[in-house]
């Protein structure tokens, strides 16, 4: 009896202790001079990267840095290219080599300094300085003098001419139609010269200053980032007072935090789409968007077996895309009809579905000399949870045509190494365009020199010629026509890659989060607002 009482007392004491400790959590909303603060809480996996977009290529970092620093232009959520720091779209010389810019006047960085042409020049020179370790120079190294700087044979960027504090010109070594689009992506965000130099190695770690609608309040490499609104933003004061980006690696934990109400917006993996779309408590909070991507079977065109176009074509006929889209992936994808994504200029709107026919597949294999069947090895990366599932389904499908598909799994690093060395025979790939342009889509992936590092090893001189021609043309319609033609060559004649589907992506957003929209890949909150009345009602 005495011992039982002691035990009960101990349990009670522990419970009280837990309760006392847990009651001290506090609330996330803070008073803002009598007005409710609008704080948006977003969860994503820890990008484990500096916030300096010159030294990394991580889209999760861009979610943060795009709100702090800005490029000269930007693609909005409807994929329209709009000037941000410049007055108008740049004027391009007739030969397509020289671009003339004029900055808007009076734009301030967060530290109060005025944006000048010299800051833009500094940003690009920093990018081409080897010590910076910039990773995306290939998007801009057609600027005169860039390659020399990267080779450390020059210290200044010859092709950048400052005319005055707001006007400057950039000259290229050769015409390059997507150049303006490349200026709109995160890698070309403009930095203040003085502050960047002062911050030195801490740039992007403890310090990041830009012209963006939000300022960096704190950057904790382990827990997340806090952004506060820029009261002096050149395009109007943003709606939100604060954006908190919380780092939570585990997607289940992210969703639990969302369900608990600690997160307002979170990505929803396609595999979990049904759980929330069919849940009465959350179905109205599920949102869909369509990134500029295509998922396809990446084929090694120099492989002993798959080097034969008939075998590749047979593989295409043997895959049942409808079954994968509707049953395996629960309708979260749409069967692809081309390599280009439907929102990329040049996509063939009249393209027919890829036919599913086991008979045709068998006949083609027979013509290729594989009447008794053929063995193909697919490789999946441990980082791609979807690939195993898709290949398992394809394995069963293609078996009927006499294709014996084996699946090997490698960890991400080993997979990437083999891919770069051109050793993979077949794998599942998703290529996402950063903006709606065929060059960024097709040239970057299938042009012969670029396709080597992706184990595609596609080498069609006509295709390459079309890519080169489209790259230098300033006529949008002509470029679209060329990409349409190139797509047909690559996927309907050569079957260099086998398009499977276009993905939808999903996110959850609380009902009080307004104007939340995603154009492509990156979560932007530029126009987002919070209905505090509705938020308090929950």
């Amino acid at each position, binding site marked *: 009896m005495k011992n039982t009482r002691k035990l009960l007392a101990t349990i009670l004491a522990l419970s009280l202790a*837990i309760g006392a400790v847990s009651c001290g959590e506090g609330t996330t909303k803070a008073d803002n001079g009598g007005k409710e603060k609008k704080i948006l809480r977003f969860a994503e996996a820890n990008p*484990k990267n500096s916030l300096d977009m010159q030294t990394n290529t991580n889209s999760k970092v861009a979610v943060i840095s795009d709100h702090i620093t800005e490029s000269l232009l930007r693609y909005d959520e409807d994929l329209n290219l709009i000037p941000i720091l410049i007055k108008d779209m740049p004027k391009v010389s007739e030969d397509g080599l020289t671009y003339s810019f004029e900055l808007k006047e009076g734009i301030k960085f967060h530290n109060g300094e005025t944006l000048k042409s010299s800051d833009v020049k500094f940003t690009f020179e920093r990018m081409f300085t080897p010590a910076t370790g910039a990773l*995306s120079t290939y998007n801009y190294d057609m600027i005169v003098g860039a390659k020399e700087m990267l080779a450390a044979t020059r210290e200044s960027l010859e092709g950048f001419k400052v005319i005055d504090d707001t006007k400057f010109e950039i000259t290229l070594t050769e015409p390059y139609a997507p150049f303006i689009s490349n200026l709109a992506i995160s890698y070309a965000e403009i930095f203040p010269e003085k502050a960047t130099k002062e911050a030195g190695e801490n740039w992007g770690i403890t310090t990041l200053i830009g012209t963006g609608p939000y300022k960096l309040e704190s950057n904790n490499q382990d827990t997340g980032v806090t952004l506060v609104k820029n009261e002096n933003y050149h395009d109007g004061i943003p709606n939100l007072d604060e954006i908190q980006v919380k780092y939570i690696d585990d997607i289940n934990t992210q969703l639990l935090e969302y369900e608990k109400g600690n997160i307002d917006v979170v990505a929803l993996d396609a595999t979990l789409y049904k759980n929330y779309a069919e849940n009465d408590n959350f179905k109205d909070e599920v949102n869909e968007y369509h990134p500029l991507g295509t998922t396809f079977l990446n084929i090694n065109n120099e492989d002993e077996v798959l080097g034969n176009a008939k075998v590749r074509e047979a593989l295409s006929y043997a895959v049942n895309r409808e079954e994968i889209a509707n049953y395996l992936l629960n309708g979260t994808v749409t069967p692809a009809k081309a390599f280009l994504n439907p929102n990329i200029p040049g996509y063939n709107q009249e393209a027919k579905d890829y036919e599913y026919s086991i008979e045709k597949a068998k006949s083609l294999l027979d013509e290729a000399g594989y009447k008794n069947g053929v063995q193909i090895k697919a490789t999946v990366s441990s980082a791609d949870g979807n690939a195993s599932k898709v290949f398992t389904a394809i394995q069963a499908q293609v078996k009927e045509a006499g294709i014996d598909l084996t699946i090997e799994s490698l960890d*991400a690093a080993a997979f990437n190494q083999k891919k770069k060395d051109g050793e993979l025979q077949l794998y599942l790939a998703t290529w996402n365009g950063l903006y709606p342009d065929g060059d960024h889509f097709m040239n970057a992936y299938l042009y012969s020199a670029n396709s080597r590092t992706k184990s595609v090893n596609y080498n069609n001189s006509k295709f390459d010629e079309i890519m080169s021609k489209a790259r230098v043309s300033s006529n949008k319609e002509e470029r679209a026509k060329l990409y349409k033609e190139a797509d047909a060559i690559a996927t309907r004649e050569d079957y260099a890659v086998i398009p499977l589907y276009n993905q939808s992506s999903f996110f959850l957003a609380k009902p009080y989060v307004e104007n939340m929209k995603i154009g492509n890949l990156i979560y932007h909150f530029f126009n987002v607002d919070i209905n505090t009345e509705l938020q308090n009602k929950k």
Partner: protein
Amino acid sequence: MRKYIIKRVVEAILVVFAITVITFIILNVIPGDPVLLILGDRADANTIEMVRHQMGFDKPLHIQFFNYLGKLLHLDLGVSYFTREAVFQSLSRAFTLTIKLALSAYAFALVFGITFGVIASVKRGKFIDKFLMSTSIIGISAPSFWVAIILQIIFGLKLNLLPISGGESVSAFILPAFALGTRYIASIARITRTSMLEIIGQDYVRTAEAKGVSKWRVTIGHALRNALLPIITLIGAELGGVLTGSMLIEKVFSISGIGKLTVDSILSRDMPVLQGAIIYIATICVIIYLLVDISYAYIDPRIRLGDEQ
């Protein structure tokens, strides 16, 4: 005793150095180019080669090793390929979080594990003994990440009593400590029971009881004290594992500890971080085993004297 300690310390240093060398060789031999992971798919071949050159990967391996060793002697563990942060700083932060988690889990495991073990040994054969030992099997068998998720759902979401994730507040460590400590409670309870049963049967314990010493004092003051050796061995062996981080628990609860840091750096081939983490883990393990050996020698002089002879 001093000679014994010096000998053990020198051996420990040699072990850590050997591990550093072996780790460096292995990390540079296994497939996986970190440059590809840093750059992603969009970079062309020229950019890949340029970045490899900038990062020094085109230098001969022995040059890379000597450069690394030179920095290590100045306690410079290098900079992460991805975050560009000094490795020492990342490790320090991760270590602090892991220490908090490990100590919470271990304190929890020790208190409940030893208590359950002692109770089970004293009440041998009774229902409470069978109940505690059966429960301990579940504790050892249940995957820690499963326990973690169940705790998150029940206490974090449904009952809304505790935070679901994070490592910023005291309360945030309760669920992870419980999830991590569960299997250690089980193993400590079992070894305590076994060890206690051996001691309880000894003559001197029966003599103390016969002399009228209270059961409480006999159990704790005499029996438990003498049953400590195997318990200390287990604590030492498992403390190393706990202090080097539980990746699953850290991932589920979003605590950026050493375990998670190590696994993430393996997957991303962030060599400086990985190398630093392995040196840290090796050092921790070596120190713990050293302390266990020294405490053995202190508790049982026969061990020390035997070694000196």
